[in-house]
């Protein structure tokens, strides 16, 4: 089998690269051990939410400061135009999910514990929760769904530092159920898809939502037709309704994954899930073929380019052994940002800066992993997403933004390597 590009990993970065390459006419295969971090993350696109302690209003202007403070940051390897273009492309390509926003201003969306969290883009089901203009909010919990605690959410939000006044209160409803055990997000999503819970929820909220109140719900409005359910709820309740992201598994993230993979399949890309890259042959600094092991067999795939989007420590793209040595798990690439041998990898304060947190693969301006002296390890190997060195995405609130921007830029680097000599062009 022969491909133009083989993408390792089916998270947001890998899917973005693969779709962008496929729609430009490339023959693409994705090889992944399983689904990626889409199933864990809220499905917002977070470009940059925090600069140190400072909450970022405009990622566009904050990026300049970020790259001055953190020269090795992944955003330093893509151009400002590429970041902007990647977000526009993402909104256009995922029109069905109704993403809105942009680089100029972050929205502020409540988390399940009631913190206002900055995001550049949010899907339609979350847009109603934007806190920037203040207002009155009602958060509704569903008894049996243990990953959403509306009274704590509302209480914290009412005390949050926000640009405009917010009032928040909570209500807990008991959905009809045959038993009193756990109601999982997937189960609830299926029952919203069937319309059963939509009718129940409208009846249960009748007369209990005050004027001008927006209604925040757990992120379980459906896997197949959440948008219709949302529109239906908003019409019948005559209020804005929105989802509030919470713990994994993320139903909104599954929608994102389903939408992206459906688009990929439709465009002719191939997805090989539950398979692992176990080896590669290179000649003259170029990867020529890659060995892929699945349950039954190991096969060789010939490819012109490879994009490594296997994720960071959380996804298994990187590992750390008991002696503190970090390893990139697919191609055994050098890992940058690891403290010297014997130096501490973690410090005792949970919220303190952890020495290992920026570890990852260092790349050149074509997003190609580099060795210690800065030259590319393979001329046709690119990397994107959480495997890149230099970011602390869970603190910066930059994870999905890095994935979309570098996934998009890796495709650019493959499609027109000469056109993207981007060094330093971000400032």
């Amino acid at each position, binding site marked *: 089998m022969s491909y133009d590009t083989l993408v390792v990993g089916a998270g947001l970065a890998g899917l973005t690269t693969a779709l962008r390459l496929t729609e430009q006419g490339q023959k693409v295969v994705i090889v992944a051990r399983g689904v990626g*971090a889409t199933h*864990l*993350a*809220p499905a917002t696109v977070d470009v940059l939410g925090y600069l140190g302690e400072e*909450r970022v209003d405009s990622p566009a202007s904050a990026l300049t400061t970020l790259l001055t403070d953190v020269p090795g940051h992944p955003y330093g390897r893509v151009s400002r135009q590429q970041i902007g273009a990647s977000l526009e492309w993402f909104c256009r390509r995922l029109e069905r999910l109704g993403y809105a926003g942009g680089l100029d201003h972050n929205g502020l969306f409540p*988390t*399940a*514990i*009631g*913190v*206002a*969290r900055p995001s550049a883009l949010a899907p339609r089901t979350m847009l109603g929760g934007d806190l920037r203009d203040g207002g009155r909010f009602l958060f509704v919990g569903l008894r*049996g769904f*243990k*990953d*959403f*605690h509306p*009274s*704590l959410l509302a*209480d*914290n939000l009412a*005390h*949050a*530092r926000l640009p405009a006044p917010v009032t928040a209160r909570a209500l807990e409803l008991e959905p009809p159920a045959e*038993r*009193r*055990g*756990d109601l999982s997000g997937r189960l609830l999503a299926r029952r919203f898809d069937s319309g059963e819970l939509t009718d129940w929820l409208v009846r249960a909220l009748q007369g209990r939502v005050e004027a001008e109140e927006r209604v925040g719900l757990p992120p379980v409005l459906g896997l197949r037709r959440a948008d219709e359910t949302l529109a239906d709820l908003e019409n019948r309740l005559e209020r804005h309704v929105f989802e509030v*992201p*919470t*713990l*994994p598994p993320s139903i909104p993230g599954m929608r994102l994954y389903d939408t992206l993979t459906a688009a990929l399949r439709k465009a002719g890309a191939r997805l090989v899930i539950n398979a692992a890259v176990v080896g590669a042959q290179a000649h003259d600094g170029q990867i020529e073929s890659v060995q892929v092991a699945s349950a039954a067999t190991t096969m060789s795939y010939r490819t012109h380019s490879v994009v490594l989007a296997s994720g*960071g*420590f*959380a*996804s*298994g793209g990187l*590992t*750390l*052994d*008991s*002696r*503190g040595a970090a390893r990139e798990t697919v191609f055994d690439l050098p890992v940058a940002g690891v403290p010297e041998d014997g130096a*501490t*990898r*973690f*410090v*005792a*304060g*949970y*919220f303190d800066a952890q020495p290992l947190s920026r570890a990852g693969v260092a790349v050149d301006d074509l997003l190609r992993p580099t060795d210690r002296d800065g030259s590319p390890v393979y001329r046709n190997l690119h990397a994107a997403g959480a495997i890149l060195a230099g970011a602390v*995405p*869970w*603190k910066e*609130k930059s*994870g999905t933004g890095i994935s979309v921007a570098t996934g998009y830029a890796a495709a650019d680097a493959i499609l027109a390597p000469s056109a993207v000599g981007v060094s330093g062009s971000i400032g």
Partner: protein
Amino acid sequence: MSSLEADVLVIGGGSTGAGVARDAALRGFTTILVERRDLVDGTTGRFHGLLHSGGRYAVKDPSAAVECIAENRILRRVAADCLEDTGGLFVATPWDDPDYGDLFVKGCEATGVPAEEIPVAEALRREPRLNAEIRRAFVVPDAALDPWKLVWGCARSAEQHGARILPYHRVLDLEVVDQRVLGALVRDEHSGEEFRIHSKVVVNAAGAWAGQIATLAGCVVNVRAGMGVMIAMNHRIVNSAVNRLKFPADGDILLPLRTACVIGTTDVFVPDPDDTEIGRDAVDLLLDEGEKLVPGFREARALHAWAGVRPLFEDTRDVAETRDVTRSHALLDHMAREGVAGFVTITGGKTTTFRLMAEVAVDAVCRQLGVERRCTTAEEPLPGSESHTLYGLDTRLAAREPVPQSEEIICECELITRSRLEQTIKRRATTNLDDIRRLLRLAMGPCQGGFCIYRATGILHHGDRVDHTEANRALVSFLEERWKGLHPILHGDQLRQARLDDWIFQGILDVEHLPA
């Protein structure tokens, strides 16, 4: 200032203190126990969990071995629900002195510790992950002990017999008049209220902190704090307690504990028993020793590390002067030692012999009070152990299986239901999730609270009693406390888990920016 009165005031809420309080209450003394933090928050809650057969001490310290096997047999009856009968093995690895095995046989014979040699092939059949190069193997009656159940069982039994158990009550001073201790000034750490407790005898069961308490009465107790590090590993890598067949040393015990197993321990003197930072060298030592017992151990998934401080009593006086000092524990009657009446210290020792330590301490109380009352703790079962049925690995699951989906499971790792959590929060009237953890094992599984702690915080806040600031503080301090046991051992799959948890708490929920 209000005050309380009791015959016996016990200082310290570990196994020794709780054992003393129970023993005293069973003998009909009015009893109060005070503990500066929560029960089982000190040494008892931070040991490996091995109920010794005595085999470990058979050569080095025969009197300790005799005590261990006697107490082992007693606790199997009276504290059955706190014990899993894992059995134990002593195995000689290629790194261990081959001559020690014969010494061990003689030592066990002399001390009455039942030790049966089995063929190596049989040992490997029982424990297939053990190093196939082991040379000898002996079976001993070790068991796994749940320290939280044990201490809370003692405390509840004491309460049933009229005692008052006061966690989060710190002793500020002892009241000494004319060479007699009349009680203590204590502070309720939750309310800040200070009050006096008047007693006829104060029992200092503060373990590694016993020297600090003794000073308050003008007495000297030299207790050195020997810090020991332990690591909990995911899965039951072994199903019985595995000991190295050699002179006791660091990292020579690997013990199954419920669904995990624990390797221990190290031994380093620390100047301050409250300062127990875990160094990478201790972790490396334990992983290396584990590798000798079980090949692949180093890279297996470590869940959590913790450190406890052994109270190591060192008498500055001639041993003949002190009463009842054995090498396994120290009972110090300060009347005999310093002429201070109404004050007894019980320290040293080990959790396996906690009941015996309590017995000798309350015997001393009887002598001080000039009464004779018989100890019954060797016969009287703890609450929950009346049927003398030992706890089984399957006990908890078996209890849930008939009704698996009757209500929400808040902590899936440890099978904790919503109602159980709600009842415990209400009963303890606490906002400290660590207190709940110690009682229910909340967040002690592989994800270390990644999923259940947001839920538990929401449930804590759900009632009217706890506002958002208290709930947030509970969550944040739980995460900070948890990290202390995580960062020293993070590698492999547990780093992957920790990174997921970073995403959950810092990325998705953004707890770093909760309102103050």
